[in-house]
């Protein structure tokens, strides 16, 4: 991984990429943003934005539990997020409540628990700025390996699951008639999404992580004319937002995660204008 980061200094000899932390951030963003965008295609199809919001808001509690239990908060946060994701999926299947209601209950529970722990244990609050706003510039070699592993896992999932997830989103009984069982695919997708949300939180913070899932996918819907176009447009928009956002945050001295999301939103607005013009 260090070799790749060093190689970037040779291939892209720009001032703004001179510091190693900028090149690490570039590699991290270019891997994580398209991974989010492709998973975002299904987030939009399954209307799961609220699910990813609930997972991201569990980060507070995950970090707090890690600090209390003397576990690396990075791992306790990821582990707790996956646990919350599994809990939502389990209760949504077992109860007769709508998925949105189940997520709403979990959302309230994890946020309240996080606040209770933080308010009761003074001194924990200082850890949470990073969780709220993210800090892609602070990622280290270990973080990059985690991001690469997740990128490859998402790519593999999209390889074997893209068509299946499409049919499940269109009509579950129809998918079943084609031998696609909803439960294992939904659980795998939910766990992978929870993992991705927690890892992406390092880059853009909990307030904006859902945007990185939804905005490139929504932009792609304005531009694409097929499922293939949807996938590649979403990936491209995410990668462009990542690179341009990183550069602009360097030029403006602004928060990187928020700048990346702003670029993505600007591209969405442009795509919306294009769509309006095309349909005139």
């Amino acid at each position, binding site marked *: 991984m260090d070799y790749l980061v060093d190689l970037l200094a040779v291939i892209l000899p720009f001032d703004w990429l001179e510091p190693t932390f900028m090149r690490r951030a570039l590699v991290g963003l270019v891997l994580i943003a398209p991974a989010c965008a492709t998973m975002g295609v299904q987030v939009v199809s399954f209307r799961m934005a609220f699910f990813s919001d609930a997972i991201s808001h569990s980060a507070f509690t995950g970090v707090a539990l890690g600090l209390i239990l003397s576990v690396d908060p990075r791992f306790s946060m990821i582990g707790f997020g996956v646990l919350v994701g599994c809990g939502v999926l389990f209760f949504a299947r077992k109860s007769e409540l709508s998925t949105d209601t189940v997520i709403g209950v979990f959302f309230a529970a994890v946020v309240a628990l996080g606040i209770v722990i933080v308010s009761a244990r003074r001194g924990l609050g200082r850890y949470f700025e990073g969780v709220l706003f993210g800090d892609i510039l602070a990622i280290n070699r270990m973080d990059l390996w985690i991001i690469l592993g997740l990128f490859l896992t998402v790519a593999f999932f999209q390889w074997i699951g893209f068509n299946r997830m499409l049919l499940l989103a269109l*009509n579950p009984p129809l998918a079943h008639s084609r031998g696609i069982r909803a439960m294992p695919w939904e659980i795998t997708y939910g766990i992978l999404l929870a993992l991705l949300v927690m890892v992406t939180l390092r880059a853009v913070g909990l307030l904006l992580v859902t945007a990185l899932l939804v905005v490139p996918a929504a932009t792609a819907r304005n531009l694409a004319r097929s499922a293939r176009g949807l*996938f590649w447009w979403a990936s491209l928009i995410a990668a462009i937002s990542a690179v341009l956002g990183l550069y602009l945050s360097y030029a403006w001295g602004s928060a990187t995660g928020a700048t990346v999301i702003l670029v993505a939103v600007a591209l969405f607005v442009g795509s919306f204008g294009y769509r309006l013009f095309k349909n005139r």
Partner: protein
Amino acid sequence: MPDPTITLEDVSVELGGHLILEHLNASIESGCLTAIMGPNGAGKTTLLHAILGLIPYQGRIYFGKNRNEKRPRIGYVPQRLDLDRGSPITVRDFLTSVLTNRPLWLGISKDADDRSQTILDRIGVRSIFHSPMGKISGGETQRVLLAQALLGRPEILLLDEPAAAVDITGEALFCDILEEVQNELGITTLLVSHDLSVVTTHARNVICLNKSIICSGTVAEMLTPDNLKRVFSPHVDIFSHQHNQPPARGKDPHGLSG
């Protein structure tokens, strides 16, 4: 009756503490079209889902004359797809996604393309191959859904009120195509329908359902005023009228009022 393709043996379904289907026993004749009729909430869709293996049930469902419990290839045509009008998913994407596991984002193979176009040609909607699914009409959507089911070379075809959201002309066209395909390929077909005229015109057999089976047999024998009253309500009746003449004022044009 010729050998049954589907045999229901004391099939009951309970979902969320509610008994949806009670002790169904029936044999569904192979190679012909059987309609399932009944009022809303009668358990028609639930029965299809049980045959698909989508939901748990008590009792046994056998397939084929050897009474095998292993499911044959089943094609399923739902009422509708969960798709918004702005979705870029095309008819081509939809049909090829059921044909191959190769992800659509890697491109579509020529074989999958050819097979999809051939089946669309067969049901007369090849021109919409590249159209977004959200932009085609209700009638075209139903034909694409039928094409999707046929692509799997099914031995059994299940249709869940396929023409519920289509106008009368579209429904008639869909049913004509269905009957043509069904006659040509000899697929055992189970059709859920509310429409008495569709059932009398296209089905050979009928199962009248209202949680339990009220009656089953040939359409000619079973669709009597008495049976319809038992299935739907005492307020339902059949009124005869001459075709090509407007029905009497206040009477249902299909002869079903209630």
